[in-house]
């Protein structure tokens, strides 16, 4: 039985909970390959996507996930919400809850926003990314993508490369991967490694070529130019010289290494075009799996049990 009421982060998720989510997602994945991509599972349910930050992938993925389960999905973006009129976030959430949605999905630029909302309303909340804090559905779809290729997760080594400090994807992946018995190595310039991150049970390396040699998975992160503090980098050119994943660097890696990226990609900055398009790259599989993982979470949060999917 799935006991979680909300998905605010992967911090605290137990291994069996993650396995339940991934197993359920595996089952749901097939629905998206059917000619009629819809099951009646959540008919009559309402899901609100409340997005205060720009998003293509995640917002669309949540919308498609809800619709393929026959839920009514409403999208609200920051620019169309009452927050532009000065409405407090809590008031916005409580007003939406007054219309009796079954799940509120929230994406917000500030760390802790989803947790704050979940304390103020009864409706289940899915955190679709809050500041630099967590992005749990991304971590879960990353795990599903790795698992379906590698077979299992236990003992795998992962290198996560890029702007670690400003990445919610990293934090969610660290918790989820540690829970699944994986080893995590963070790679990036010291200006982008947050203080005391080792306390989360990870190692840190500054040199890409060395750091990727023994890993099973390389996760490249986008350099988030839109929220960059001007002192963190000398130039994108130098960043690319030091941290771009090229086929030359990949020669040092294991033959069966997998490459993932949460997107959107800055082509040629953190990852070379040919690497991005190589067969070791699972970037588009991640996007496909994102729909399945989100369907699974919606289903599980609304009372479905993992053994009654079929």
């Amino acid at each position, binding site marked *: 039985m799935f006991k979680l009421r909300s998905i605010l982060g992967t*911090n605290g998720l137990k291994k069996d909970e993650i396995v339940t989510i991934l197993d359920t997602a595996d089952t749901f994945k097939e629905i998206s390959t059917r000619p009629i991509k819809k099951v009646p599972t959540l008919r009559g349910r309402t899901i609100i996507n409340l997005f205060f930050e720009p998003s293509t992938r995640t917002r669309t993925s949540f919308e498609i996930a809800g619709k393929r389960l026959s839920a009514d999905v409403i999208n609200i973006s920051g620019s169309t919400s009452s927050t532009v009129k000065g409405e*407090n*976030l*809590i008031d916005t959430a409580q007003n939406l809850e007054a219309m009796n949605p079954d799940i509120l999905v929230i994406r*917000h630029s*500030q*760390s*802790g*926003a989803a*947790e*704050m909302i979940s304390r103020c309303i009864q409706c289940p909340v899915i955190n679709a990314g*809050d*500041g*630099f*804090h*967590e992005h749990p559905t991304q971590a879960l779809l990353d795990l599903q993508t790795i698992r379906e290729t590698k077979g299992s997760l236990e003992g795998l080594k992962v290198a996560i490369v890029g702007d670690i400090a400003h990445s*919610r994807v990293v*934090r969610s992946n660290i918790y989820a991967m540690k829970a699944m018995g994986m080893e995590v190595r963070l790679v990036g310039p010291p200006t982008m490694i*947050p*203080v*005391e*991150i080792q*306390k*989360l049970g990870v190692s840190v390396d500054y040199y890409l070529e060395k750091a990727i040699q023994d890993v099973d998975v390389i996760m490249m992160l986008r350099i988030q130019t839109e929220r960059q503090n001007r002192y963190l980098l000398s130039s994108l050119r130098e960043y690319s010289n030091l941290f771009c994943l090229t086929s030359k660097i990949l020669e040092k890696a294991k033959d069966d290494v997998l490459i993932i990226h949460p997107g959107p990609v800055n082509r040629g900055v953190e990852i070379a075009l040919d690497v991005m398009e190589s067969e070791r790259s699972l970037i588009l599989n991640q996007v496909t799996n994102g729909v399945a993982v989100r369907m699974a979470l919606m289903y599980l949060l609304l009372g479905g049990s993992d053994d009654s999917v079929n």
Partner: protein
Amino acid sequence: MTVLIKNGRVIDPANNLDATKDVMIVKGKIEAIDPPGKINIDEKGKTSVIDAKGCVVCPGFIDMHVHFREPGFEYKETIESGCQSAAAGGFTSVAVMPNTKPVNDTRSVTELMLSQAKAKGIVRVYAIAAITQGLAGECLSEMGDLKDAGAIAFSDDGRPVMNNELMRRAFEYSKMFKVPLIQHSEMLDLTEDGCMNEGAVSTELGLKGMPVEAEDIMVYRDIALLEKTGGRLHVAHISSGNSVDLVRQAKAQGLPVTCEVAPHHFILTDEAVRGYDTNTKMSPPLRTAKDVKRIKEGLKDGTIDIIATDHAPHDLTDKQCEYQNACFGIVGLETALPLTLKLVDENIFSLSDAIKKLTSAPADIFNLDSGNFSIGKQADVVIFDPDYEYEIDVSKFHSKSKNSPFNGWKVKGKVLHTLVGGKVVYSAVEH
């Protein structure tokens, strides 16, 4: 009107007194302090008698760091509500910071604050005026005129004086008026957008950190300047272990440096921020357990001279929001005593030392004519039961604002009566 406070444990650190005594107050002044029963009441009925058996009777507390928000932000606190909060916390004197609207950088604002306080007649209010005009950090305020209007010290609190040249000149200029400068020590270019201490917890929560070095660098800069300029430096709300060391060294060199600590900085650590409770957001931020340990050492060896609350009332609307957007600060007047007594229980200092840091020590630093029970002094008195246990309930605060992280804490030590100039300005309802 005379008041007799009987059978209390009278603690008067300035006069090295800690004994069971009766305290006689006549015409608002300390008339006599004698062994129990020795003082005779001549005219029965005209003397009000307070039985303080089992309680501590000491000079009223002095808080050199409060924000009363008037003028400008009366929805958070007024001088009247702030004074009521002070009285309820056992404080008989407070010094209000200048970050009001308009800023207290001119005679008329100082006069307004002081006359408002006098009209309400609850506790004594002293004004701390701005070092720079508009707290803008560009041009010195009229310190001479402000001092003449009643300002006792200068600070840009809430904002540090970032410009080195300006700070140097401020020290030099302030020498003419023999007034201390109080610095909120924070290198702003290191703390931009920060909202909590930088460390393992900020990394985990994904909140922009404020590194402890931002405090240390400015404390060191001010000490370095002071050596040459002369003047007096008082470091506000010290929160960093390294800064405590810097002050300790400066004092050893004989420099005129003093400092204060707020109770939350010796009680809480940045672990309290987990869960994003905005009542854990203050500046300087809650630091690590290591810093707290060194703060306690500083309190123990006297490096930290005084305890001041940094009482910073904020309305719910300023706190019930995303962590990053929330205002900095918490109310402190009504929780200072029980939190300080925790350190007495931990044997960090004696009860008498604790009281000293709340009474005679601030009076000495800021040259106030209070903080002791010398015969003939104004009778500012607090009577508290150090053993009374209760649960902190913010809804019962006298402050207009309820932004405290200590709501629901079980604590010991309750103020029963507060007297200012011999007049009872607060009495606990229940006990």
